[in-house]
Each structure stands twice: as structure tokens, then as C-alpha cells.
């Protein structure tokens, strides 16, 4: 039996940004899994920026947080309680809560209040309350060895910070700062500063979070089958993954002006060596052979909310798959240099099914599929989630807008070969139908909504 088996696991406090709350726990869980860390949640609430976890060591705590987009910082938690009196009583009765190395260090105190604003003098009086701690180091405001942080959370409504008053906090804690998360990365990948973007490029923050949920990391291969201008490709490569993208519209990959293309973005961020390739293809007729070589698939498929979803083929089914090329005036049409194949409408559910089947056939064991699905608010939580016997649903993260929402679905490839699983037969798509009949979401979108959605990414 080793020391770590006897000692209670060390508690750490994660200070989250109070945004995209439903994505926060799945993001940390994915980072724990990517780094093989035995994370345990002690307390978590979407209503609070403070969460408590246990991990074996400070090093592990720094590791888990280093790539987190939604965590501001992580602290070694020394003690926590419901109010200051009991917190101080606890610290007085158990001096061992302040480790020897921390006692001797130079230090300073700061305070993190949630839903409360303290004046300078009020902050000072809270900090002075900790004067009883057995600290022998000196106070240093400039680069102290130890940064003590007092956490306090007040009752109230999100976003409304009360001034000093008679209210008491609902929880308090004392921690030591270890390291920051990766929120500054959001600014680095800000679309406003990116050389090449499209009308549907996903914002940097959710694009980065999506790639964390896919466990993008060094040595891995990630693929986006609807890569567009490459938003997910650059953010996955930011975390160290090699990325591969394809799009039915090759002009999206190539760009219109020199330098303003997918490769140009990789150059801008200095991650060119992590761009594998981009090619023009349609997921329903993918050239990727059936072999499980992908560690992750990240995508925001074009469900055709605006354009109507298209895949290759003629809308008259009699003209598809005939094996005979179309010949006009003696010229074989598809051999003309500017040939653009006709496209047929394609249903929403058929696309979800295709994505799941593709993922099942191409992901390595425990590889992840992360993709976005739009929903009308009336679909709500009852929206039917795609299922596949080789894919386990790991997380469902909604993002709400005024009259619609979009959901990030996260699946993990269950180990094992497809032959040994009960994979249902592919349903035939009724071919004679209009795009709006086939695509329920799109139908509702155009028939039912008069308002424009509030900024879904950077439209």
C-alpha cells in the first residue's frame, strides 16, 4: 500500500467562466480522459463558477486545466465551509491543512467573490480574518511564491452583483493558485482576426470546446467531413492534433484569393505542420476507405437551414446510378473542366444516420464523434438523438438562442468490430420529395419563425 492509498485524495477548486455551463463538466471530463487522470467530482452546479474535484497531485491539476477553454484557473483547496466562522474554526483546529512548504513561502491574498462586490476595505477585513494562519513567510505583492485565494459565493441571480450589505455567503473556501486555464486562446483564434472565414464559421470559443470534447491532442488524427473554411481544423490542431478536412465545395478549401484559404489560416497560427490535407468530397460517397484510423470527428454539418441540404445526385432518382454518363451535344458532361455535379435534397435524419455510420466505421476504439445539430425550441429535450450500436452517447450540450437551439452531441466509439454488433440496415431515403418536406427542422424554420435568430455563431 502506498501513501496515496491511505491519504484522502487532494481537493482542487476549479474556477469556471460562467458561460456555456452545460459544456463545462464534459470538457473537464474529456481532458481528464485524454490525460488518463482519475478525476472525481465532489461538487458541481451550473449555477456556480466554483467546482470541487479530487486528483492525485498538483501536477495533475495543472495538466487537467492547461487546455481548458471554460475554466479560468485551478487552485489547491485547503479548506472550505458554509460560512466564515466555521471555516476559521476548521483551519484553527486542523493546522495540518496548511502544508509546511506553504507556511514558509512568501505570499499574498486575493479574494474571488461570486454575485457580490466588496469595497477595498471590506476585502481587507475578510483577508485579515485569516491572520491566525500559521504563516511564517513574508507578504509580497510582486511575484509571491504562494497566492492564497479566498472564494465566496453569495445567493442571488446570475449576472447581478450586489454591493456590500448584510447578506452572508452560501459557501466560502481558501485555496492556493496553481495555474490558469486556456481562456486567452479564445482571443488568439478570434474570427475577427482570422484571415479566412466563411458565413458559417463557428466562433472560436465553442470551436475550441468542441475539439476538447473530441479529445484532440498531440499524435492524433481528427477529421471534419464538412470542413468549410476549416474552423474546427485549426482549433483541433491548436491542441496538437493532425487534421484532415473535406467539403462538398472545394472552393471553400482553396479560397478565392491567394493566402486566404484553409492553409492560410494554419500559417497564420503557426501550425502548418499539423495540417494533413483537405479534399473535395461528399460524405455519402466518401473516398475514405473503411478502416478505423481516425481518433476524432468534429463537425458542424450544413443541415441546410438556409440553403437546403444537398448531396450529390439528380433529384429525379431515375437519373441516378444509371451507370451511363450524361452526354449533351456529343460532349460527356462530367469530363468538362468546369463540371459541377447536380445535387439532390437530402434529409436531416439521413444525414445524422450517415454521420454515425461513418464514425462507427472510421473511429478507433474510444475515438470520439462530436457534432452540432440544430433544433427548434419545440423539439426541446425530446429531440430524437441518433443512435448506433457502436457509439455511446457521452454528452449532450445545448446552446439556446431566442427561437431555436443547437446541440453538441458527443459520442465515443465502443471497442470492437462492427461485424460483431447488431447494426440496423440503412433506411432508404424517399427520393421524390422536396428539401423542406425532408428536413423537418428547416420546414419549421421557414414556416414558423418570423424573427431572425440571435447571432448563431458569426452569421
Amino acid at each position, binding site marked *: 500500500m502506498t501513501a496515496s492509498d491511505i491519504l484522502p485524495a487532494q481537493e482542487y477548486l476549479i474556477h469556471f467562466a460562467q458561460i456555456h455551463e452545460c459544456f463545462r463538466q464534459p470538457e473537464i471530463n474529456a481532458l481528464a480522459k485524454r490525460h488518463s487522470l482519475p478525476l472525481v467530482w465532489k461538487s458541481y452546479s451550473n449555477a456556480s463558477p466554483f467546482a470541487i474535484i479530487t486528483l492525485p497531485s498538483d501536477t495533475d491539476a495543472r495538466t487537467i486545466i492547461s487546455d481548458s477553454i471554460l475554466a479560468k484557473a485551478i487552485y489547491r483547496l485547503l479548506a472550505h465551509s458554509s460560512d466564515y466562522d466555521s471555516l476559521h474554526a476548521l483551519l484553527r483546529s486542523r493546522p495540518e491543512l496548511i502544508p509546511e512548504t506553504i507556511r514558509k513561502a512568501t505570499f499574498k491574498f486575493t479574494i474571488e467573490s461570486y454575485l457580490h462586490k466588496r469595497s477595498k476595505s471590506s476585502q481587507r477585513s475578510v483577508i485579515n480574518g485569516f491572520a491566525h494562519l500559521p504563516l511564517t513567510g513574508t507578504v509580497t505583492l510582486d511575484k509571491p511564491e504562494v497566492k492564497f485565494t479566498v472564494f465566496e459565493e453569495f445567493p442571488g441571480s446570475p449576472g447581478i452583483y450586489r454591493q456590500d450589505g448584510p447578506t452572508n455567503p452560501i459557501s466560502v473556501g481558501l485555496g492556493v493558485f496553481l495555474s490558469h486555464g486556456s481562456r486567452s486562446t479564445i482571443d488568439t483564434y478570434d474570427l475577427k482576426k482570422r484571415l479566412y472565414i466563411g458565413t458559417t464559421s463557428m466562433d472560436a470559443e465553442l470551436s475550441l470546446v468542441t475539439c476538447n470534447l473530441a479529445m484532440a491532442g498531440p499524435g492524433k488524427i481528427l477529421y471534419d467531413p464538412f470542413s468549410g473554411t476549416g474552423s474546427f481544423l485549426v482549433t483541433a490542431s491548436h491542441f496538437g492534433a493532425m487534421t484532415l478536412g473535406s467539403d462538398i465545395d*472545394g472552393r471553400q478549401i482553396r479560397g478565392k484569393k491567394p493566402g486566404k484559404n484553409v492553409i492560410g489560416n494554419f500559417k497564420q497560427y503557426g501550425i502548418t505542420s499539423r495540417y494533413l490535407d*483537405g479534399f*473535395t468530397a461528399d460524405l455519402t460517397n466518401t473516398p475514405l476507405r473503411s478502416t478505423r484510423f481516425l481518433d476524432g470527428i468534429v463537425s458542424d454539418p450544413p443541415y441546410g437551414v438556409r440553403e437546403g441540404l444537398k448531396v450529390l445526385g439528380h433529384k429525379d432518382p431515375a*437519373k441516378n*446510378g444509371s451507370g*451511363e454518363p450524361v452526354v449533351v451535344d456529343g460532349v460527356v458532361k462530367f469530363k468538362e473542366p468546369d463540371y459541377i455535379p447536380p445535387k439532390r435534397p437530402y434529409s436531416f435524419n439521413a444525414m445524422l444516420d450517415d454521420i454515425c455510420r461513418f464514425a462507427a466505421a472510421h473511429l478507433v476504439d474510444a475515438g470520439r464523434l462530436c457534432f452540432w445539430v440544430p433544433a427548434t425550441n419545440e423539439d426541446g429535450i425530446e429531440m430524437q438523438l441518433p443512435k448506433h450500436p457502436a457509439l455511446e452517447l457521452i454528452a449532450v450540450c445545448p446552446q439556446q438562442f431566442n427561437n431555436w437551439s443547437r446541440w453538441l452531441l458527443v459520442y465515443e466509439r465502443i471497442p470492437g468490430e462492427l461485424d460483431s454488433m447488431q447494426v440496423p440496415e440503412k433506411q432508404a431515403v424517399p427520393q421524390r420529395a422536396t428539401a423542406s418536406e425532408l428536413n423537418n427542422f428547416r420546414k419549421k424554420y421557414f414556416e414558423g419563425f418570423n424573427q431572425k435568430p440571435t447571432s448563431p455563431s458569426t452569421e
Partner: protein
Amino acid sequence: MKILTTNYLACAVKTCKSEPAAFPLHFKDAELAREELELNPEFIKNVLPRIDWPALAQTAAELGFTTLPSQKPENLDEQTMKDLHTLLMETQVMEGKLVCGNCGYEYNIKEGIANFLLPNHLV
């Protein structure tokens, strides 16, 4: 288009899917370029087990690279790692065609981007 990518590409025509002759695709009129890229040993190590070696050897030979060992290397020493990086990542086909050995369909490569969209009669 990197040589590594071609190891995962087969003919997109459905009836070719199960045909051994549809993989690997064969380069035609290939214009090669070499781009110096940072060596990523962790990636090379991870991707090696996922490479179809006979197909890679065939592709490499067709492009005139004949120094590839006939068997997948078991130990990745520094030189082998570098050689693989040069072939898989740094060697790229900028212009040309990828041809299916089964149906003969030719996929164009333009500015390093291959086009796998099929005409109607093959969908």
C-alpha cells in the same frame, strides 16, 4: 495532397468499395512538391500501425521512391522516423490525377486538393 492521405483513399464509386483493385489509387501525371515540415515523432509513432504498408510501398514506388523497406519497420529509430516523415508528410502531389485501378475513374488534383465528387451516373 500528402502521401499519407493517399493511404486512406479508395475509389468513391460504391461498386468499387469491395474491389481490391480500387485501393490504392494510382497517381497519373503527378507533379510533386516537397514542403519542409516540423517532425512530429508522436504522430509518426501513432499512425504507423494504421498504415497499409503494401499500399504505401506501391504508391511510393509509382512515384519513384524505391528505398522504402518492404516490411513495416518494427523499431522506429531516428533515421527511419525522419525518412517516414519525409515521405508521408513532406512529399506532396500538387497537380495530377488519382486513378482507380478497378473502374478507371480519374480524380483530379488541383493545387494539392483532390476532387472526389462523382458525376451523376456513378452516384
